[in-house]
């Protein structure tokens, strides 16, 4: 058994950093997207494209493409659309064009005072007409609003939503509070060290195939009863199915699915989870490892009166994600009270940062079975101890180079852990508690 991380020991850290660089596992500790402060101008075009699914499939999508190519994907449409990250009070302007064969628009639930210019009036908001190459210049609709309240929000098409959102015309908006970086809302109790987005959605593959082959206005689509017989077969976190969720953001092989979903933290840190119900079904999002405290919903802190902070927050180990709803919650983990020393320390060893001292030096109370009697997971380090690698049979392990503790975060509607009849996959990712000192990008 080998200790990977010791304080004041640079060599193993550099080694691990190298491993990380080479590993397809890994994503950023912040939420990836288009970041802006004070004023934000987005130039989007609704486009047709495809996503890939881990079962080898390819699904037609309609998505909001970023004309300014922040995701470095050739301004292709993405599923979900670009995540917009702004500071409270930012004046947001979105210029929307349309390459789709149907009209399109954008609505911003939770935002006040959205104004529009251009296009033609639809039921909910101004719409961009269906693409027509004969119309020059290209029609543009401009949506403007001030992001006045911090929190997590959703945006989506306001035109033919029953099909448009299914096809991928939706995304997330993160509004940071005036209080500054590292807070979810304007209160000290909403402090966090790392934050991750969990944009949950699903697809009925038959709808996408019908639209691809016959078009959105075909009688075949209408006669398929795609609304009343809705039956999803793919489930997504940040637009990817497991195991693609483990890959970093902006990887070259997923150009239309730029956002990863592999949360990582150190013991004792506070992780802000922003959970968005981006599709049309409910999902019970279960996070192994510990409870989280739900501090906000739909961009409003759970407080009884202004200034009180999240005093109406509550603990949860499975959070209901409801279509159109956002939930902000703080997750913490220290390994407190395990009854054994999770680092495998001898009694005289120094404490690790945030280690639960009463368990220091206590041996693990049971013996683990022999290697031959066990099946091993790809994320198992070969050792029960945090930051230690143990011996594993050839071909086992390998997905957890820092010997972190790994926890499955997933829809507990376990049917949704599949990719169109293939298990495993779907709405699932792993959260990694990295040992102290292990780098998290």
């Amino acid at each position, binding site marked *: 058994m080998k200790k990977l991380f010791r304080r004041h020991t640079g060599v193993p850290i550099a080694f691990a950093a190298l491993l990380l660089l080479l590993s397809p596992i890994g994503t950023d500790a912040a939420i990836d997207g288009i970041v802006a402060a004070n004023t934000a101008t987005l130039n989007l075009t609704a486009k047709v494209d495809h996503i890939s699914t881990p079962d080898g499939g390819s699904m037609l999508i309609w998505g909001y493409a970023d004309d300014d190519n922040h995701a470095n994907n050739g301004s292709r449409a993405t599923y979900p659309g670009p995540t917009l990250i702004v500071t409270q009070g930012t004046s947001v302007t979105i210029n929307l064009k349309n390459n789709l064969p149907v009209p399109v628009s954008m609505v911003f639930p939770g935002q006040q005072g959205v104004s529009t210019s251009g296009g033609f009036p639809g039921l909910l908001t101004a719409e961009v007409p269906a693409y027509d190459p004969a119309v020059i210049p290209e029609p543009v609709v401009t949506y403007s609003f001030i992001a006045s309240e911090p929190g997590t929000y959703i945006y989506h098409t306001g035109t033919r939503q029953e099909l448009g959102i299914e096809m991928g015309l939706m995304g997330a908006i993160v509004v940071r509070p005036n209080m500054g970086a590292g807070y979810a809302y304007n209160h000290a109790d909403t402090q966090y060290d790392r934050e991750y987005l969990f944009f949950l959605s699903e697809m009925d593959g038959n709808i996408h195939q019908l639209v691809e082959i016959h078009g959105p206005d075909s009688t075949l689509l209408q006669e398929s009863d795609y609304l009343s017989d809705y039956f999803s*077969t793919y489930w997504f976190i940040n637009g990817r199915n497991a195991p693609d969720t483990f890959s970093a953001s902006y990887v070259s092989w997923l150009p239309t699915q730029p956002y990863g979903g592999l949360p990582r933290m150190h013991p004792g840190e506070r992780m802000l989870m922003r959970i968005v119900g981006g599709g049309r079904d*409910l*999902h*019970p999002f*279960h996070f*192994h*490892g*510990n*409870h989280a*405290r739900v501090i906000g919903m739909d961009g409003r802190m759970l407080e*009884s009166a202004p200034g009180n902070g999240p*005093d*109406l*927050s*509550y*603990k949860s*180990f*499975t959070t*209901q994600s409801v279509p159109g709803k956002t939930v902000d919650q703080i997750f913490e*983990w*220290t*390994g*407190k*009270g*395990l*009854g*054994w020393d*999770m680092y495998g320390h001898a009694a005289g060893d120094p404490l690790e940062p945030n280690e639960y001292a009463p368990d220091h030096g206590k041996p*693990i*109370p*049971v*013996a*683990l*079975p022999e290697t*031959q*009697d*066990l*099946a*091993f*997971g*790809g*994320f*198992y380090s070969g050792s*029960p101890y945090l930051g230690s690698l143990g011996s594993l049979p050839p071909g086992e392990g390998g997905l957890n180079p820092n010997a972190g*503790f*790994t*926890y*499955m975060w997933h829809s*507990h*509607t*376990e*049917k949704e*852990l*599949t990719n169109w*009849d*293939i*298990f*495993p996959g779907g709405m699932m990712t*792993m959260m990694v*508690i990295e040992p102290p000192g292990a780098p998290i990008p």
Partner: protein
Amino acid sequence: MNKRGFHKWLLLLALLLFAAVPATAVVNVQCPGDTNGDAVINGSGDPAHPNAQCMHLAAGDGFVTMADGYPQYMFGFADITGTPPKKALDVGTLAATFPAPPITLDEGDEFFLSLTNVGMLMRPDLFDPHTVHWHGFPEAASVFDGVPDSSISINMGSTLTYYYNVVEPGTYMYHCHVEATEHMQMGMLGNLYVRPAQDGTTLEYPAGSGKTYNKFAYNDGDGSTGYDVDFPIQIGSFDSAFHDASLTVQPLPFAMMRDNYPMLNGRGYPDTVQVAGPDAPPEANPVSGNSTQPESSLVTAAPGQRVLLRISNLNVTRFYTLQTLGVSMQVVGKDASIHRGPDGKDLYYMTNSVVLGGGESLDAIIEIPESATAGTTYFLYTSNLNYLSNNEEDFGGMMTEIRVN
């Protein structure tokens, strides 16, 4: 190759095959204070672990009977605590129960849970390992979390002992996490709850009422989660097409999974209210003779009593709503936590319906009116009304009764 040479090769092959069988596979229960390996603490136990609790679960397969009489093949757990290790494989085989044997613990316990994989008798083609995932265990270590991707799973014929230092009271649940969609649809699901350290103290609630309680859902400090009787209610449902495909070794319909047997504690109504006797399900397991659906969901209480329902949901296909008729519920806990803000503010609420997705739990207290007369019956049932059915039988499913005694 001549015949003799062929036999030689065959012999060599057989030797290789047998040599490949793990020589270490052994039933190995770890339980401090247990001297003979049956997971029962002998004498005064181990002074180093005075609060040790031990249990020995077998993971395998079995059969249950739906409320319309339809037999279902299942994967599941059986409680083989007290069985000598040499007999564990025999006793544990084809002995699975639904739901899995209930696990009830006290705050402060050290829980040593030995899991022996006895294999699936009806599916000798399968070599599946198994795990126990204590769902919701706070500050969990991944090695004992039971997620096969993150840790270790036990192969057939061997035992893995999980260790849990039980710190937080509440209503949890447990299940196997190996190939979770399959093993959970197949029934490896059970009740698990932890009684708080406050139990045994006497608190008056509400203050000035003269009513006192010494059993509580949580360490509330004020008796507000006090109860007289408690009942675990686990929501579950089976898709018979999936179970039948498993038994007949057919491709499993993951995408087409649609549950058609909604249940509470492993039975559909009216089996849910049977306690014992000839009408109670199921017929005993033909091999072990043990009941495979031993848990009634009948709630009984006296007028004026407070009833704690420990509700959890471990179905794998959808959200379910449970509704009460005649009495209301006060939700005092969610997900094994008292439902309070960080400064102790009560977030309890009164309701007639609770919505739970898979992997959620709630603690709800029902107060039986003082005026209720013996024989009065209230109902607890799903308001997803099409699930008041046992497949095509349109009267049954996810429902039970609350009877005043």
